[in-house]
């Protein structure tokens, strides 16, 4: 069907317009990782010594270490933000408009996912630019090499948001996502500390971190920023993206429960 492309352009444009109309969202998305980078990391620099671990070939500052994790944080929070806006769309009725298009539902939802991911990546690059201004630089080509990693990680986390939105019945229930999804995913990962540090404290926690798809998304970005390829991280991230996307598409299918409401 030749209507696929116009729909993709329209949905991505609408996501972009919505983002432009919500400047506070852009500021919040940048301030959050910058606070971590400039305040949290400065405070913990002395406490958290880092040995040389791949992909790093020299000792690095803690600020440098957490930059990929904070890129992941932006993608994670944006994935959840898009989930929130999907629930809002459903409550306001505009989701019905989307889902009654004659185009396949999977394509419409993929367009939503692509639009949200594109906006997330723009924010990541804005963050990396500010970090560079503060002297936290990556190899120049790393900024380009990181793009495909950011796309894969963004799609995976966006798909998680899509999945959550298909199961959350009301906007009020979204607060639980913060406690039960965002915080565990972020803190039980390699975003803030390398996994060997976690293993020193608890093998169990280390194993949980190693299973967390967010860990692999962060490592994929970290290696790409230093022009290295991390096959296992890519594999785990793609696998998680496929699982989340499949489950989300089921949730939003006419047979699923994503759009159904009682009454």
């Amino acid at each position, binding site marked *: 069907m030749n*209507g696929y492309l116009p729909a993709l352009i329209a949905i991505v444009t609408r996501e972009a317009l919505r983002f432009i109309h919500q400047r506070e969202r852009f500021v919040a998305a940048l301030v959050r990782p910058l606070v971590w980078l400039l305040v949290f990391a400065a405070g913990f620099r002395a406490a958290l010594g880092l040995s040389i671990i791949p992909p790093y070939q020299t000792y690095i500052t803690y600020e440098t270490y957490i930059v990929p994790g904070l890129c992941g944080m932006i993608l994670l929070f944006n994935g959840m933000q898009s989930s929130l806006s999907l629930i809002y769309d459903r409550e306001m*009725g505009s989701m*019905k408009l989307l889902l*009654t*298009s*004659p185009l396949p539902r999977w394509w419409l939802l993929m367009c939503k996912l692509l639009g949200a991911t594109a906006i997330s990546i723009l924010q990541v690059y804005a963050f990396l630019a500010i970090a560079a201004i503060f002297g936290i630089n990556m190899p120049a080509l790393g900024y380009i090499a990181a793009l495909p990693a950011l796309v894969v990680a963004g799609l995976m986390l966006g798909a998680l948001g899509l999945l959550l939105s298909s199961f959350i019945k009301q906007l009020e229930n979204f607060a639980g996502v913060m406690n039960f999804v965002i915080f565990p995913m972020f803190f039980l990962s390699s975003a803030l500390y390398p996994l060997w540090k976690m293993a020193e404290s608890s093998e169990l926690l280390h194993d949980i971190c190693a299973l967390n798809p967010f860990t692999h998304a962060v490592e994929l970005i970290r290696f790409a920023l230093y022009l290295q390829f991390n096959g296992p991280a890519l594999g785990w991230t793609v696998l998680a993206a496929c699982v989340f996307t499949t489950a989300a598409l089921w949730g939003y299918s006419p047979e699923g429960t994503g759009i159904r409401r009682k009454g």
Partner: protein
Amino acid sequence: MTGIRVADLSYSYGAKTALDGVSFDVRAGAFCALLGPNGAGKSTLFDLLTRLFVAPRGRIEIAGHDLAKAPSAALAKLGIVFQQPTLDLDLTVRQNLSYFAALHGLSGRNRAQRIDQVLERLDIADRMHEKARTLNGGHRRRTEIARALLHDPAVLLLDEPTVGLDAASRAAITDHVHGLADDGTTILWATHLADEVRPDDRLVILHQAKVLADGLARNVSGDTSLQEAFLAMTSEPA
């Protein structure tokens, strides 16, 4: 030719039955009012007609296309005005229509022409560059009807489209939509207001998940007003 065919449609939310063996046909180009009190099952019927979800039992055809077997073909023939406002208030009227047109695969010059045509038809061409937020309720509804007509649907569903509008806006929108039926579009107009139904309209009364009456409005109402007949029918358990 049949515009809408609903056969033996049933749906439940857990233990609560929303639709129970509902069947009716609307011929192509007819205006059919779906009248029912709040909670009769009208919105559930619309959600099934638009394939937002599927019923475990029953069959729906839109302009000759089986909604279960050929959903894309059926939805391509369907225009929908939901009860809930679905305009993006931060976009202009034209941007709202353009977005929807793209969801139906319209692009380029064809899209622009269709937008101009439907805005003219609904008498809101002069508001096309205004944000939806600045429109009054009547104009928002007209915009939604214009949007639903963009892809030239054979069947138009309207779920309580006059809710919250003043008397003048209600009358204007009712007239517009009757005009669309005169031009050949099949209309299914859900309402709980008997005064929106004209004597020559086809009428289906839905109450407590079942069809209570089906026929020309003048025949259903008999010697009394439709309002009185409707209240008499729905004041007793089905």
